[in-house]
């Protein structure tokens, strides 16, 4: 069975339209982020407490809010979690020794004596840990991007000794940062380190004309930005597991991009005398199209079952990956490939697209 016999669709010609679509999506996301005053960070990053109660009978969030008010809580948020029997209470803590749970429980016990409950989940994150987790999440995203740039550069363009050298430097960097926590005691230092790393990476990319790596990273940033934007639009919180989902999206989207780039690299020497670059890339996209469809179909199916049947706890994670797979499949075709053409035309004048022969 085949979905499409010898596909020959026009993708590259639509790149300007695609550019507009992507830009619009990103702008909507950014706009929403500005409106909401940044992403809605979970307690993992802000510090605070989050408690999930499971009641025997349905309970009104409004009643629970009043109970919290009367318990003397100041900064809190009450929502249903999944169904109307589950209540998620988020608190900002005044200080860590506060017996917030005891206070809430005694209020609940006296106000809803008939409606028994159990505590399903109770998380408390101190402000210091919150700051650390924020740093860690940022570093994780940063280091995975750098790692990817390096790997793609080794495989697709750079001389191998350079690749080994850069990989070693990267490995050392990850090691020092993750072991000497003391160095990173402030947000400012983290930001400085990130800016410095980006500058170094940017310089290396320009200097060595890493067009594959840069195009792949542009696509990945595109995916991450859009996913965060959609999360902001849906008013979903960003916590540690969402960061893990973002990294997974990065991995998946990259997978797609690499399959495509591999094919471009293979086709280019065969066709470059006959066809312009954008035609070669368009042909490559068509060549791998049925694989792209089948793989994203199977992956999407499993994530969809996780989204529907996996339960409330894992749902936000599954949602992020679901969005990411759609955006990631699109971005390999409509972001990574146009970026490759753009970079080649702008910076790579006269140079060959592929220095290294395909493996």
């Amino acid at each position, binding site marked *: *069975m*085949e979905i499409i016999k010898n596909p020959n669709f026009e993708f590259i010609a639509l790149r300007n339209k695609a550019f507009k679509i992507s830009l619009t999506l990103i702008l909507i996301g950014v706009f929403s982020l500005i409106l909401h005053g940044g992403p809605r960070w979970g307690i993992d990053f802000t510090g605070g407490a989050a408690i*999930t109660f*499971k009641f025997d009978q349905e309970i009104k969030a409004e009643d629970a809010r009043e109970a919290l008010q009367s318990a003397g809580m100041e900064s809190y948020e009450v929502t249903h979690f999944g169904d109307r029997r589950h209540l998620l209470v988020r608190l900002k803590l005044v200080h*860590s*020794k506060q017996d917030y*749970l005891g206070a809430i429980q005694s209020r609940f016990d006296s106000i809803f004596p008939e409606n028994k409950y159990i*505590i*399903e*989940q*109770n*998380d*408390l*994150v*101190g402000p*210091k*840990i919150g700051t650390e987790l924020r740093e*860690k*999440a940022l*570093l*994780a995203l940063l*280091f*995975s991007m750098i*790692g990817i740039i390096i790997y793609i550069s080794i*495989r697709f363009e750079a001389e191998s000794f350079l690749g080994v050298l850069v990989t070693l430097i990267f490995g050392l960097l*990850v090691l020092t940062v993750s072991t000497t926590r003391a160095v990173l005691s402030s947000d400012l230092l983290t930001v400085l380190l990130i800016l410095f790393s980006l500058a170094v990476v940017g310089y290396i990319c320009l200097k060595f004309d890493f067009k594959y790596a840069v195009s792949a990273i542009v696509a990945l940033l595109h995916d991450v930005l859009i996913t965060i934007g959609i999360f902001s639009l849906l008013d979903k919180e960003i916590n*540690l*597991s969402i960061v*893990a989902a973002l*990294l*997974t999206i*990065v*991995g998946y989207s*990259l*997978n797609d991009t*690499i*399959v495509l780039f*591999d094919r471009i690299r*293979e086709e280019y020497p065969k066709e470059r005398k006959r066809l312009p670059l954008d035609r070669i890339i368009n042909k490559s996209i068509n*060549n791998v199209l*049925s*694989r792209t469809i*089948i*793989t994203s*179909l*199977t*992956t999407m*199916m*499993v*994530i969809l*079952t*996780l989204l*529907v*049947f*996996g*339960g409330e*706890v*894992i749902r936000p994670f*599954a949602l992020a990956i679901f969005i990411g797979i759609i955006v990631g499949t699109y971005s390999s075709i409509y972001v990574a490939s146009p970026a490759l053409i753009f970079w080649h035309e702008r910076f790579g004048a006269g140079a060959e697209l592929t220095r290294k022969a395909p*493996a």
Partner: protein
Amino acid sequence: MFQNIKFKIIFILVIFLGSLYYLWPTYYLSRLPAEDKRLMSLSDPQGLRDLEERSIKLGLDLQGGMHLVLELDQSEISMAADEQEDAIDRALEIIRTRVDQFGVSEPLIQKAGDERIIVELAGVVDTARARALVEQSAYLEFQLVKFQNEFQEVLALVDEVIVENELYLLPQEEEAGEAPAQAEQERGEEFDPMDLFGKEDEQRTEPDSIESEEESSLDELLGSEGALAGETKKPFSQLFYQQSQGLQTDRRENYLLVPMDREPLVKEYLNLPEVREVIKLAEVNNQVDYLRYRSLDEEDEPDTLEVLWGDSKDNYVGPDGAVYKLIYLLKKHAEMTGEFLADANATLGSGYDPKTANKPLVMMQLISEGADSFATISERYIQRDLAIVLDNIVKTAPRIMSRIPGGRAQIEGQPTMESARDLSIVLRAGALPAPLTIAESRTIGPSLGADSIQKGSQAAMIGLALVLIVMLVYYKFGGLVANVALIFDLIIILAVLAGFNATLTLPGIAGLILTIGMAVDANVLIFERIREELRSGKTLRAAIDAGYDKAFSTILDANITTFITAVVLFQFGTGPIKGFAVTLSIGLATSMFTAIYVTRVVFDLWTLRKGVKSIAL
């Protein structure tokens, strides 16, 4: 690997059988009814531990439990580096002792950096207890140890109470050590409806009458066998190691020994209210103490007793390698408490006495209010053992050799400087507070964990079924081969998780599900290539060879980059996220084997047969 196809098949079979071997304990445990498991935890805890050790471990988010990060509170006082180190050591000792009391299986307690302690307690979900873990100040007591023969008498009394009220915790034949394991399993379900599976010490709150009723109904069920069970006259004391059983212990010691695998059962018995009562009020000793110290004891509270466990650091290892826990009978009323202690330090003995000179010992300094009373106590109890009890665990029980005036005592007989240091930490822990705050706590109820497992595996099953169908419909024979490879892949992933003692978390299950979706990618790439090669007019054999060769580097590239993100996730992620990174990485590696190597062997086998010119793909 291997040129000859026969060897390839054998290699695959070995991996397959090996995987099944590693998965067996997980499978067995998951099929074991909860009641049988509870009985096994009392009758054969070692066997159960072995099984659990070799099974896939569930993260706290799946089995329920508590993850705590405790931090030295320096908001009010600032500490020098060595003070900080001392404070964290004391805190560690206090936490370790308290967790010991919880009876949690395999607790994790570790120092993280200079000012943090990480505690992970599976099954404990009571936040109030976590606060107690941290906020209560440590309670150090000095309690008089009763003589061993007194302890034996108490054991006999406990035996009587158990027999009289039929409080047996196990079917009696089993307890007598005669019953085959099968009998235990058959009967397990009717036996005891209460969940005793060690979660909390206090959970036996039901009235005792229920227990007795259950027992009598059991008797009725068992008929004559029940009567036979009554013949076991020593249900409790037989759990202890008796001198007659040939174990060499120091006759001068006053503790008794309980074999490690009997510990849960002894604990359960000791928790029975009737047993506690009979121990508390046992009048065994009074001739000895009362006659000798009649005048001094007059003002004392009634001389009640209690049984406490020794520290697990002090476990006794028998000549045959068996491990025994120390257990003490103590006078409940403390002779002195930690508040009279000023300081304690490990040091080397000075002077010329060969017994102490240059030997590690602990110097203990009392505050002036404590000095006088300690002089009196030490005079009264010369040649008796005085237990140093931290939070209800007996840390050590040195013998009083002489009257100790002036508030300076030394505790000798420390085998190493290290153990002297540990003991001084215990003493200081009772004297000086170690202010800790909860920097992070994550608690997940067992019901939510069970729910997550159930929903996660349901999602995995449905997802798997859908992928299998799509592959089969789209690639026909090729899809069938890919499907076999996919199921093989899942078996290997789970076996690797079990074999490497990795922990499965909820995000880990998500990683597994994601792997199902992504693992077929390799086969999709290969099959699409083969189709292309076939279209370009190659023969089947040549097309298969070219398909695998050309797809390989792409698959490798794609997997390695995903692997990079997984490594980063592992490095920076917290517990559950690490679980995700682990299953994802394992899945990436194993899917390379199943999707490329295994499917290739199947295709080679198929096309090697004579007359096969085409393949449904």
